[in-house]
């Protein structure tokens, strides 16, 4: 499976990759995007099976990426990994079709709990 990690922070992308490995999902093909526009373009170019996206990113926010993908008929599995989380944000994520909402800081156990059902 191919997993796209979208975050404008290089450190956070690295931590997400490392946590995926720790949680036992390191064998998947991991690709990265550094902003929302790049994430949107890469979903179209690379057809990942799953997208892990930050919320607050330059160019396009994570929620904008998700809405734009759904509006274009793309139903890639998509969820958020973000340091910001409010009930309003979770609601917006849900109604836009997000599968999960992981709050930073997160642990390998949390990744396992969320991704095991998705990645098998």
């Amino acid at each position, binding site marked *: 499976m191919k997993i796209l990690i979208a975050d404008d922070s290089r*450190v956070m992308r690295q931590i997400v990759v490392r946590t995926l490995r720790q949680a036992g999902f390191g064998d998947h093909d991991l690709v990265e995007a550094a902003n929302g526009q790049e994430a949107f373009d890469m979903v179209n170019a690379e057809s990942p099976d799953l997208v892990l996206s930050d919320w*607050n990113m330059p160019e396009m926010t994570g929620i904008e990426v998700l809405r734009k993908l759904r509006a274009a008929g793309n139903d890639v599995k998509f969820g958020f990994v973000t340091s*910001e989380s409010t009930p*309003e944000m979770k609601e917006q994520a849900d109604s836009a079709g997000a599968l999960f909402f992981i*709050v930073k*800081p997160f642990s390998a156990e949390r990744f396992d709990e969320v991704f095991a059902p998705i990645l098998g």
Partner: protein
Amino acid sequence: MSIEVEVNENDLAEMVEQVWESYLDPEGVSPLIPTYDENQPSEVHSSVSITGSWTGYIVYASSVQAARRAAGAFLAMEPDEVGDEDLSDVLGELANIVGGNVKAMLPPGALLSLPQVVLAPEATARFPGTERISGVYGMWEGEPVSISMWQSRGDNKEGAE
């Protein structure tokens, strides 16, 4: 009207503890040991501002050695392999994570800025019209680390008649 700060020192301490558990000390062997000394020295710092339902700053400050160790822990590198860019990125991320968690506890309508990183002591920073309302101060393997909240006086009308 006075806007109550809904994030107290215990909340801040809990967020900081989570950062240590998740990233800086996953083995649970080197916690941040509280000093309660709000004037402890620092050599580098990072901050995010929050504006809206609450207005102010979240500041992460530490010694260079502690920042290097944090970067090493975040990036799975040895502290002496850490470059300036690694150091800056990790300091920014630390302020961002704590700021994001603080924001989650505030009333709706708060905006979080991107982090600002300054490779100079926190004492060189000025946050005009603010006062420190809360903080966690400690030593991490003998090196100073602090996380503090600075509230803007004007915008929050704290104590206004």
